[in-house]
Protein backbone atom coordinates (compact mmCIF):
# COMPACT_ATOMS: atom_id res chain seq x y z
CA UNK A 1 0.00 0.00 0.00
CA UNK A 2 0.99 3.63 -0.26
CA UNK A 3 0.16 6.56 1.97
CA UNK A 4 -0.15 10.06 0.59
CA UNK A 5 1.31 11.70 3.67
CA UNK A 6 -1.64 13.37 5.34
CA UNK A 7 -4.33 12.07 7.64
CA UNK A 8 -7.21 13.35 9.73
CA UNK A 9 -6.34 14.24 13.31
CA UNK A 10 -9.80 13.25 14.53
CA UNK A 11 -11.46 9.89 14.16
CA UNK A 12 -15.08 11.03 14.25
CA UNK A 13 -15.65 12.37 10.76
CA UNK A 14 -18.72 13.84 9.14
CA UNK A 15 -19.87 13.78 5.54
CA UNK A 16 -22.68 14.92 3.32
CA UNK A 17 -23.79 14.29 -0.21
CA UNK A 18 -24.20 17.78 -1.61
CA UNK A 19 -25.09 16.68 -5.13
CA UNK A 20 -26.78 13.37 -5.83
CA UNK A 21 -26.53 11.32 -9.03
CA UNK A 22 -29.28 11.83 -11.55
CA UNK A 23 -30.13 8.16 -12.11
CA UNK A 24 -30.37 6.77 -8.55
CA UNK A 25 -32.73 7.35 -5.65
CA UNK A 26 -31.30 9.44 -2.84
CA UNK A 27 -32.17 6.89 -0.21
CA UNK A 28 -30.29 4.20 -2.13
CA UNK A 29 -27.28 6.44 -2.61
CA UNK A 30 -27.22 7.25 1.10
CA UNK A 31 -27.24 3.56 1.93
CA UNK A 32 -24.40 2.74 -0.45
CA UNK A 33 -22.31 5.69 0.71
CA UNK A 34 -22.88 4.58 4.29
CA UNK A 35 -21.77 1.05 3.44
CA UNK A 36 -18.69 2.41 1.68
CA UNK A 37 -17.63 4.39 4.77
CA UNK A 38 -18.35 1.36 6.94
CA UNK A 39 -15.61 -0.50 5.06
CA UNK A 40 -13.10 1.82 6.70
CA UNK A 41 -14.64 1.81 10.18
CA UNK A 42 -14.70 -1.99 10.35
CA UNK A 43 -11.07 -2.33 11.44
CA UNK A 44 -10.39 1.11 12.95
CA UNK A 45 -11.99 3.46 15.44
CA UNK A 46 -13.03 5.79 12.65
CA UNK A 47 -16.69 6.80 12.66
CA UNK A 48 -18.59 8.54 9.91
CA UNK A 49 -21.69 10.57 10.58
CA UNK A 50 -23.95 11.73 7.80
CA UNK A 51 -25.08 15.35 7.84
CA UNK A 52 -27.35 17.11 5.43
CA UNK A 53 -26.38 20.71 6.15
CA UNK A 54 -23.47 22.73 7.46
CA UNK A 55 -19.76 22.13 7.19
CA UNK A 56 -18.49 18.56 7.08
CA UNK A 57 -15.14 16.88 6.75
CA UNK A 58 -15.92 14.99 3.53
CA UNK A 59 -18.21 16.44 0.90
CA UNK A 60 -19.49 14.13 -1.82
CA UNK A 61 -20.69 15.25 -5.23
CA UNK A 62 -21.83 13.61 -8.43
CA UNK A 63 -20.82 15.95 -11.21
CA UNK A 64 -19.95 15.91 -14.88
CA UNK A 65 -17.09 17.26 -17.02
CA UNK A 66 -15.52 20.44 -15.62
CA UNK A 67 -16.84 20.89 -12.10
CA UNK A 68 -14.68 23.53 -10.50
CA UNK A 69 -11.55 21.78 -9.33
CA UNK A 70 -9.63 21.99 -12.59
CA UNK A 71 -9.76 18.27 -13.16
CA UNK A 72 -12.65 17.70 -15.54
CA UNK A 73 -14.33 14.34 -15.83
CA UNK A 74 -14.24 12.63 -19.19
CA UNK A 75 -17.70 11.18 -19.76
CA UNK A 76 -18.65 7.52 -19.51
CA UNK A 77 -15.70 5.17 -18.97
CA UNK A 78 -12.15 6.39 -18.38
CA UNK A 79 -11.99 8.22 -15.10
CA UNK A 80 -14.83 7.24 -12.80
CA UNK A 81 -14.16 9.44 -9.78
CA UNK A 82 -11.46 11.20 -7.83
CA UNK A 83 -10.99 12.36 -4.27
CA UNK A 84 -8.85 14.72 -2.26
CA UNK A 85 -6.43 13.62 0.39
CA UNK A 86 -7.05 14.91 3.94
CA UNK A 87 -4.62 17.80 3.61
CA UNK A 88 -6.66 19.04 0.67
CA UNK A 89 -10.03 18.58 2.30
CA UNK A 90 -11.05 14.96 1.71
CA UNK A 91 -13.87 15.63 -0.75
CA UNK A 92 -14.92 12.94 -3.21
CA UNK A 93 -16.25 13.60 -6.71
CA UNK A 94 -17.98 11.01 -8.87
CA UNK A 95 -18.42 11.37 -12.61
CA UNK A 96 -22.18 11.47 -13.07
CA UNK A 97 -21.78 10.52 -16.71
CA UNK A 98 -21.12 6.98 -15.48
CA UNK A 99 -23.99 4.54 -15.14
CA UNK A 100 -23.83 4.16 -11.36
CA UNK A 101 -25.51 0.99 -10.17
CA UNK A 102 -26.22 -0.82 -6.94
CA UNK A 103 -25.92 -4.58 -6.59
CA UNK A 104 -25.80 -5.16 -10.33
CA UNK A 105 -23.11 -6.33 -12.72
CA UNK A 106 -24.27 -3.68 -15.16
CA UNK A 107 -22.79 -0.21 -15.09
CA UNK A 108 -20.30 0.82 -12.43
CA UNK A 109 -20.82 -0.28 -8.86
CA UNK A 110 -21.26 2.76 -6.65
CA UNK A 111 -20.33 1.03 -3.42
CA UNK A 112 -16.98 -0.25 -4.67
CA UNK A 113 -15.91 3.02 -6.24
CA UNK A 114 -17.09 5.04 -3.23
CA UNK A 115 -15.18 2.80 -0.82
CA UNK A 116 -12.06 3.29 -2.96
CA UNK A 117 -12.45 7.06 -3.13
CA UNK A 118 -13.02 7.34 0.61
CA UNK A 119 -9.70 5.56 1.01
CA UNK A 120 -8.14 8.59 -0.68
CA UNK A 121 -10.25 10.90 1.50
CA UNK A 122 -8.64 9.21 4.50
CA UNK A 123 -5.07 9.48 3.21
CA UNK A 124 -4.44 6.33 1.17
CA UNK A 125 -2.79 6.50 -2.25
CA UNK A 126 -3.10 3.82 -4.88
CA UNK A 127 -1.79 0.40 -4.05
CA UNK A 128 0.20 -1.68 -6.51
CA UNK A 129 -1.55 -4.79 -5.21
CA UNK A 130 -4.17 -5.67 -7.80
CA UNK A 131 -6.33 -7.39 -5.18
CA UNK A 132 -6.49 -4.26 -3.01
CA UNK A 133 -9.49 -1.97 -2.93
CA UNK A 134 -6.98 0.86 -3.39
CA UNK A 135 -5.70 -0.50 -6.71
CA UNK A 136 -6.53 2.22 -9.24
CA UNK A 137 -8.40 0.12 -11.80
CA UNK A 138 -12.07 -0.72 -11.53
CA UNK A 139 -12.26 -4.49 -11.49
CA UNK A 140 -15.96 -4.97 -12.17
CA UNK A 141 -18.82 -5.75 -9.88
CA UNK A 142 -17.97 -7.98 -6.93
CA UNK A 143 -21.14 -9.27 -5.23
CA UNK A 144 -19.30 -10.21 -2.06
CA UNK A 145 -16.92 -7.48 -1.02
CA UNK A 146 -13.86 -8.25 1.06
CA UNK A 147 -11.36 -5.64 2.18
CA UNK A 148 -7.88 -6.80 1.26
CA UNK A 149 -5.26 -7.21 3.99
CA UNK A 150 -3.22 -4.60 2.13
CA UNK A 151 -5.99 -2.01 2.59
CA UNK A 152 -6.49 -3.04 6.18
CA UNK A 153 -2.81 -2.58 6.96
CA UNK A 154 -2.87 0.78 5.19
CA UNK A 155 -5.80 2.25 7.09
CA UNK A 156 -4.58 0.88 10.40
CA UNK A 157 -1.16 2.43 9.83
CA UNK A 158 -2.87 5.82 9.77
CA UNK A 159 -5.63 5.40 12.34
CA UNK A 160 -4.67 2.37 14.43
CA UNK A 161 -6.54 -0.84 15.06
CA UNK A 162 -10.09 -0.95 16.31
CA UNK A 163 -10.32 -0.76 20.07
CA UNK A 164 -14.01 -0.18 20.67
CA UNK A 165 -17.00 -2.39 20.10
CA UNK A 166 -19.04 -1.35 17.07
CA UNK A 167 -22.03 0.82 17.87
CA UNK A 168 -25.37 0.48 16.17
CA UNK A 169 -26.09 3.30 13.80
CA UNK A 170 -28.92 4.23 11.51
CA UNK A 171 -26.51 5.79 9.07
CA UNK A 172 -24.94 2.57 7.80
CA UNK A 173 -24.87 -1.10 8.63
CA UNK A 174 -22.26 -1.96 11.24
CA UNK A 175 -20.84 -5.44 11.30
CA UNK A 176 -19.07 -7.33 14.02
CA UNK A 177 -15.36 -6.79 14.53
CA UNK A 178 -15.04 -10.54 14.80
CA UNK A 179 -15.91 -11.07 11.19
CA UNK A 180 -12.95 -10.82 8.85
CA UNK A 181 -14.75 -8.96 6.12
CA UNK A 182 -17.73 -6.80 5.45
CA UNK A 183 -20.87 -8.76 4.70
CA UNK A 184 -24.28 -7.48 3.72
CA UNK A 185 -26.63 -6.53 6.54
CA UNK A 186 -28.58 -9.40 7.95
CA UNK A 187 -32.28 -9.63 8.51
CA UNK A 188 -32.82 -10.00 12.26
CA UNK A 189 -33.01 -13.60 13.40
CA UNK A 190 -36.54 -14.84 13.48
CA UNK A 191 -38.40 -18.12 13.80
CA UNK A 192 -40.97 -17.42 11.10
CA UNK A 193 -39.73 -20.45 9.17
CA UNK A 194 -40.81 -22.60 12.14
CA UNK A 195 -44.29 -21.12 12.19
CA UNK A 196 -44.71 -21.50 8.45
CA UNK A 197 -42.23 -23.93 6.94
CA UNK A 198 -43.67 -23.90 3.41
CA UNK A 199 -40.79 -22.80 1.20
CA UNK A 200 -40.48 -21.47 -2.33
CA UNK A 201 -37.44 -23.47 -3.41
CA UNK A 202 -34.40 -25.35 -2.19
CA UNK A 203 -31.15 -25.91 -4.05
CA UNK A 204 -27.52 -26.80 -3.59
CA UNK A 205 -24.79 -24.40 -4.65
CA UNK A 206 -21.87 -25.61 -6.74
CA UNK A 207 -19.90 -25.70 -3.48
CA UNK A 208 -22.43 -28.08 -1.93
CA UNK A 209 -24.12 -25.56 0.35
CA UNK A 210 -27.88 -25.91 0.67
CA UNK A 211 -30.14 -22.88 0.55
CA UNK A 212 -33.86 -22.51 1.14
CA UNK A 213 -35.71 -19.53 -0.32
CA UNK A 214 -38.92 -18.18 1.14
CA UNK A 215 -40.42 -14.87 0.06
CA UNK A 216 -37.65 -12.27 -0.06
CA UNK A 217 -35.38 -14.14 2.35
CA UNK A 218 -33.03 -17.10 2.19
CA UNK A 219 -31.68 -19.57 4.71
CA UNK A 220 -28.39 -21.41 4.60
CA UNK A 221 -28.96 -24.89 5.94
CA UNK A 222 -26.70 -27.09 8.01
CA UNK A 223 -27.28 -30.84 8.01
CA UNK A 224 -30.13 -30.50 10.52
CA UNK A 225 -31.02 -26.83 10.94
CA UNK A 226 -30.47 -23.25 9.78
CA UNK A 227 -27.01 -21.75 10.02
CA UNK A 228 -26.63 -18.89 12.49
CA UNK A 229 -27.21 -15.44 11.04
CA UNK A 230 -30.05 -16.39 8.73
CA UNK A 231 -32.43 -15.52 7.17
CA UNK A 232 -30.86 -12.88 4.98
CA UNK A 233 -32.31 -10.95 2.09
CA UNK A 234 -32.17 -12.63 -1.31
CA UNK A 235 -31.46 -9.23 -2.85
CA UNK A 236 -28.26 -9.05 -0.81
CA UNK A 237 -27.19 -12.65 -1.30
CA UNK A 238 -27.89 -12.83 -5.03
CA UNK A 239 -27.87 -9.21 -6.26
CA UNK A 240 -30.40 -8.66 -8.99
CA UNK A 241 -32.52 -11.67 -8.10
CA UNK A 242 -36.12 -11.03 -7.00
CA UNK A 243 -37.95 -12.72 -4.14
CA UNK A 244 -40.72 -15.32 -4.41
CA UNK A 245 -38.72 -17.63 -6.65
CA UNK A 246 -40.61 -20.59 -8.08
CA UNK A 247 -37.79 -23.06 -8.62
CA UNK A 248 -34.00 -23.36 -8.71
CA UNK A 249 -31.22 -25.85 -9.35
CA UNK A 250 -27.48 -25.90 -9.88
CA UNK A 251 -26.44 -27.68 -13.05
CA UNK A 252 -23.25 -29.66 -13.61
CA UNK A 253 -21.69 -26.58 -15.28
CA UNK A 254 -21.65 -25.04 -11.78
CA UNK A 255 -24.22 -22.40 -12.65
CA UNK A 256 -27.40 -21.90 -10.66
CA UNK A 257 -30.68 -21.24 -12.46
CA UNK A 258 -33.62 -19.48 -10.81
CA UNK A 259 -37.16 -19.47 -12.19
CA UNK A 260 -40.01 -17.11 -11.47
CA UNK A 261 -43.17 -16.64 -13.51
CA UNK A 262 -42.20 -16.54 -17.16
CA UNK A 263 -38.54 -15.69 -16.54
CA UNK A 264 -35.30 -17.21 -15.39
CA UNK A 265 -31.93 -15.96 -14.12
CA UNK A 266 -28.51 -17.63 -14.31
CA UNK A 267 -25.89 -17.07 -11.63
CA UNK A 268 -22.28 -18.11 -11.31
CA UNK A 269 -21.99 -18.31 -7.54
CA UNK A 270 -23.46 -15.06 -6.24
CA UNK A 271 -22.91 -13.12 -9.45
CA UNK A 272 -25.44 -12.85 -12.24
CA UNK A 273 -23.96 -14.61 -15.25
CA UNK A 274 -24.89 -12.22 -18.03
CA UNK A 275 -27.95 -10.17 -18.85
CA UNK A 276 -30.98 -11.60 -17.05
CA UNK A 277 -33.89 -12.24 -16.67
CA UNK A 278 -34.66 -14.10 -19.87
CA UNK A 279 -37.84 -15.82 -20.89
CA UNK A 280 -38.18 -19.47 -19.93
CA UNK A 281 -39.65 -20.10 -23.36
CA UNK A 282 -36.39 -18.92 -24.94
CA UNK A 283 -33.82 -20.62 -22.71
CA UNK A 284 -35.79 -23.75 -21.82
CA UNK A 285 -37.82 -24.59 -24.89
CA UNK A 286 -40.66 -26.93 -24.05
CA UNK A 287 -40.79 -26.07 -20.36
CA UNK A 288 -43.87 -24.21 -19.06
CA UNK A 289 -43.92 -20.91 -17.15
CA UNK A 290 -44.95 -20.60 -13.51
CA UNK A 291 -43.15 -23.73 -12.38
CA UNK A 292 -43.61 -25.48 -9.06
CA UNK A 293 -40.19 -27.08 -8.71
CA UNK A 294 -37.03 -28.10 -10.56
CA UNK A 295 -34.06 -30.33 -9.84
CA UNK A 296 -31.18 -32.19 -11.41
CA UNK A 297 -31.94 -35.82 -10.75
CA UNK A 298 -29.05 -37.97 -9.60
CA UNK A 299 -30.33 -40.95 -11.53
CA UNK A 300 -29.31 -39.55 -14.91
CA UNK A 301 -28.06 -35.99 -14.38
CA UNK A 302 -30.93 -34.56 -16.40
CA UNK A 303 -33.07 -31.59 -15.39
CA UNK A 304 -36.63 -32.23 -14.20
CA UNK A 305 -39.32 -29.59 -13.98
CA UNK A 306 -42.58 -30.02 -12.06
CA UNK A 307 -45.84 -28.15 -12.38
CA UNK A 308 -49.27 -29.17 -11.14
CA UNK A 309 -49.67 -32.88 -11.78
CA UNK A 310 -47.04 -33.08 -14.54
CA UNK A 311 -43.28 -33.19 -14.98
CA UNK A 312 -40.92 -32.55 -17.87
CA UNK A 313 -37.41 -33.90 -18.46
CA UNK A 314 -34.98 -31.45 -20.04
CA UNK A 315 -31.68 -32.46 -21.65
CA UNK A 316 -29.74 -29.42 -22.93
CA UNK A 317 -27.60 -31.66 -25.14
CA UNK A 318 -30.57 -32.97 -27.13
CA UNK A 319 -32.64 -31.37 -29.89
CA UNK A 320 -35.36 -30.91 -28.93
CA UNK A 321 -34.31 -30.81 -25.29
CA UNK A 322 -37.75 -32.07 -24.20
CA UNK A 323 -38.97 -35.26 -25.86
CA UNK A 324 -42.44 -35.34 -27.39
CA UNK A 325 -43.47 -37.91 -24.79
CA UNK A 326 -43.46 -35.20 -22.10
CA UNK A 327 -45.10 -34.00 -19.93
CA UNK A 328 -45.76 -37.13 -17.90
CA UNK A 329 -47.77 -37.54 -14.69
CA UNK A 330 -46.00 -36.96 -11.38
CA UNK A 331 -47.75 -40.10 -10.19
CA UNK A 332 -45.00 -41.97 -12.09
CA UNK A 333 -42.80 -40.98 -9.13
CA UNK A 334 -44.42 -43.35 -6.66
CA UNK A 335 -45.59 -41.58 -3.53
CA UNK A 336 -44.70 -38.04 -4.69
CA UNK A 337 -47.66 -35.62 -4.53
CA UNK A 338 -48.80 -33.13 -7.17
CA UNK A 339 -48.45 -29.36 -6.76
CA UNK A 340 -44.96 -29.46 -5.25
CA UNK A 341 -43.16 -26.49 -3.73
CA UNK A 342 -39.59 -27.67 -4.20
CA UNK A 343 -37.42 -30.60 -5.23
CA UNK A 344 -33.80 -31.19 -4.33
CA UNK A 345 -31.07 -33.67 -5.05
CA UNK A 346 -29.33 -33.50 -1.67
CA UNK A 347 -25.69 -34.08 -0.94
CA UNK A 348 -26.44 -37.47 0.69
CA UNK A 349 -27.65 -38.84 -2.65
CA UNK A 350 -31.35 -38.84 -1.86
CA UNK A 351 -33.90 -36.81 -3.76
CA UNK A 352 -36.31 -34.78 -1.63
CA UNK A 353 -39.68 -33.32 -2.53
CA UNK A 354 -41.34 -30.57 -0.51
CA UNK A 355 -44.99 -29.63 -0.33
CA UNK A 356 -46.58 -27.38 2.25
CA UNK A 357 -45.01 -27.99 5.64
CA UNK A 358 -43.92 -31.55 4.80
CA UNK A 359 -41.27 -33.32 2.75
CA UNK A 360 -40.78 -36.72 1.10
CA UNK A 361 -37.53 -38.65 0.69
CA UNK A 362 -37.33 -40.44 -2.62
CA UNK A 363 -35.34 -43.62 -3.10
CA UNK A 364 -33.84 -43.29 -6.57
CA UNK A 365 -32.99 -46.96 -7.04
CA UNK A 366 -36.46 -48.19 -6.05
CA UNK A 367 -38.02 -45.20 -7.74
CA UNK A 368 -40.46 -44.65 -4.90
CA UNK A 369 -40.78 -42.59 -1.74
CA UNK A 370 -38.58 -44.21 0.87
CA UNK A 371 -39.98 -46.39 3.61
CA UNK A 372 -38.63 -45.44 7.00
CA UNK A 373 -39.65 -44.71 10.56
CA UNK A 374 -41.04 -42.19 11.10
CA UNK A 375 -42.81 -42.40 7.79
CA UNK A 376 -42.75 -39.85 5.04
CA UNK A 377 -43.96 -37.22 4.65
CA UNK A 378 -42.25 -35.68 7.66
CA UNK A 379 -42.47 -32.11 9.01
CA UNK A 380 -39.94 -29.90 7.24
CA UNK A 381 -39.68 -27.48 10.17
CA UNK A 382 -38.20 -30.08 12.49
CA UNK A 383 -36.03 -32.09 10.13
CA UNK A 384 -34.69 -29.33 7.88
CA UNK A 385 -34.88 -26.15 9.93
CA UNK A 386 -34.16 -27.52 13.40
CA UNK A 387 -37.38 -26.14 14.87
CA UNK A 388 -38.39 -27.44 18.30
Amino acid at each position, binding site marked *: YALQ*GSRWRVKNLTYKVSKYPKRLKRVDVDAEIGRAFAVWSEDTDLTFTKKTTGPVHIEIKFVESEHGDGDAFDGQGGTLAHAFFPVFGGDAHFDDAELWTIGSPRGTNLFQVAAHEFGHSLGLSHSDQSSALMAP*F*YRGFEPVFRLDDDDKAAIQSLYGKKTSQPKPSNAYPVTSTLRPSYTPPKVPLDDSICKDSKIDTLFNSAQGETYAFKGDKFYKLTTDSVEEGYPQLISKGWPGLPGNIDAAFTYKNGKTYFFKGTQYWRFQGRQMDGVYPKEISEGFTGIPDHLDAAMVWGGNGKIYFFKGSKFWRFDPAKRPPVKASYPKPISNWEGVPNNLDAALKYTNGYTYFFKGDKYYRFHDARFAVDTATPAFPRPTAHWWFGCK
Partner: protein
Amino acid sequence: APVSTTTQAEMYLSQFGYLPASARNPANSGLQDKSTWLNAIQEFQNFAGLNITGELDDETLKLMSLPRCGVRDRVGTGDSRSKR
Protein backbone atom coordinates in the same frame (compact mmCIF):
# COMPACT_ATOMS: atom_id res chain seq x y z
CA ALA B 1 -12.15 1.61 -27.04
CA PRO B 2 -8.61 0.71 -25.97
CA VAL B 3 -5.95 3.40 -25.90
CA SER B 4 -4.61 2.78 -29.37
CA THR B 5 -2.21 5.56 -30.15
CA THR B 6 1.00 6.85 -28.68
CA THR B 7 -0.62 10.23 -28.20
CA GLN B 8 -3.38 8.82 -26.06
CA ALA B 9 -0.86 6.84 -24.07
CA GLU B 10 1.16 9.99 -23.49
CA MET B 11 -1.91 11.77 -22.23
CA TYR B 12 -2.75 8.87 -19.97
CA LEU B 13 0.76 8.66 -18.53
CA SER B 14 0.74 12.39 -17.97
CA GLN B 15 -2.68 12.42 -16.37
CA PHE B 16 -1.69 9.80 -13.84
CA GLY B 17 1.68 11.22 -12.94
CA TYR B 18 4.16 9.27 -15.03
CA LEU B 19 4.99 12.08 -17.46
CA PRO B 20 5.17 15.85 -17.00
CA ALA B 21 1.87 17.67 -17.41
CA SER B 22 2.99 19.18 -20.71
CA ALA B 23 2.48 15.81 -22.34
CA ARG B 24 -1.26 16.32 -21.99
CA ASN B 25 -0.97 18.64 -24.90
CA PRO B 26 -0.42 16.51 -27.99
CA ALA B 27 1.45 19.41 -29.56
CA ASN B 28 4.14 19.00 -26.94
CA SER B 29 4.38 15.27 -27.16
CA GLY B 30 7.37 15.35 -29.44
CA LEU B 31 9.36 17.10 -26.73
CA GLN B 32 9.60 13.98 -24.60
CA ASP B 33 13.05 12.50 -24.88
CA LYS B 34 13.25 8.78 -25.38
CA SER B 35 14.43 7.88 -21.89
CA THR B 36 11.67 9.91 -20.24
CA TRP B 37 9.10 8.14 -22.37
CA LEU B 38 10.65 4.73 -21.69
CA ASN B 39 10.86 5.36 -17.96
CA ALA B 40 7.24 6.49 -17.85
CA ILE B 41 5.99 3.32 -19.50
CA GLN B 42 8.23 1.18 -17.34
CA GLU B 43 7.05 2.89 -14.17
CA PHE B 44 3.45 2.35 -15.16
CA GLN B 45 4.10 -1.29 -16.01
CA ASN B 46 5.93 -1.79 -12.73
CA PHE B 47 3.15 -0.22 -10.72
CA ALA B 48 0.47 -2.20 -12.51
CA GLY B 49 2.29 -5.49 -12.12
CA LEU B 50 2.88 -5.99 -15.86
CA ASN B 51 6.00 -7.22 -17.57
CA ILE B 52 8.37 -4.27 -17.64
CA THR B 53 9.12 -3.98 -21.33
CA GLY B 54 9.07 -0.22 -21.80
CA GLU B 55 6.90 -0.81 -24.82
CA LEU B 56 3.26 -0.02 -25.40
CA ASP B 57 2.35 -3.65 -25.82
CA ASP B 58 -1.19 -4.95 -25.94
CA GLU B 59 -1.31 -5.73 -22.24
CA THR B 60 -0.19 -2.24 -21.31
CA LEU B 61 -2.64 -0.60 -23.69
CA LYS B 62 -5.45 -2.79 -22.42
CA LEU B 63 -4.81 -1.76 -18.85
CA MET B 64 -4.74 1.88 -19.89
CA SER B 65 -8.19 1.42 -21.38
CA LEU B 66 -9.77 0.18 -18.13
CA PRO B 67 -12.10 2.44 -16.16
CA ARG B 68 -10.26 3.74 -13.14
CA CYS B 69 -9.94 6.25 -10.35
CA GLY B 70 -8.79 9.69 -11.41
CA VAL B 71 -6.33 10.16 -8.56
CA ARG B 72 -2.76 9.92 -9.79
CA ASP B 73 -0.96 6.68 -9.10
CA ARG B 74 2.43 8.01 -8.23
CA VAL B 75 2.86 9.17 -4.66
CA GLY B 76 4.12 12.74 -4.61
CA THR B 77 2.44 13.67 -7.85
CA GLY B 78 -1.16 12.94 -7.02
CA ASP B 79 -1.51 15.46 -4.25
CA SER B 80 -1.28 18.60 -6.33
CA ARG B 81 -5.04 18.78 -6.78
CA SER B 82 -6.38 21.38 -4.38
CA LYS B 83 -9.82 21.35 -2.91
CA ARG B 84 -10.90 24.94 -2.98
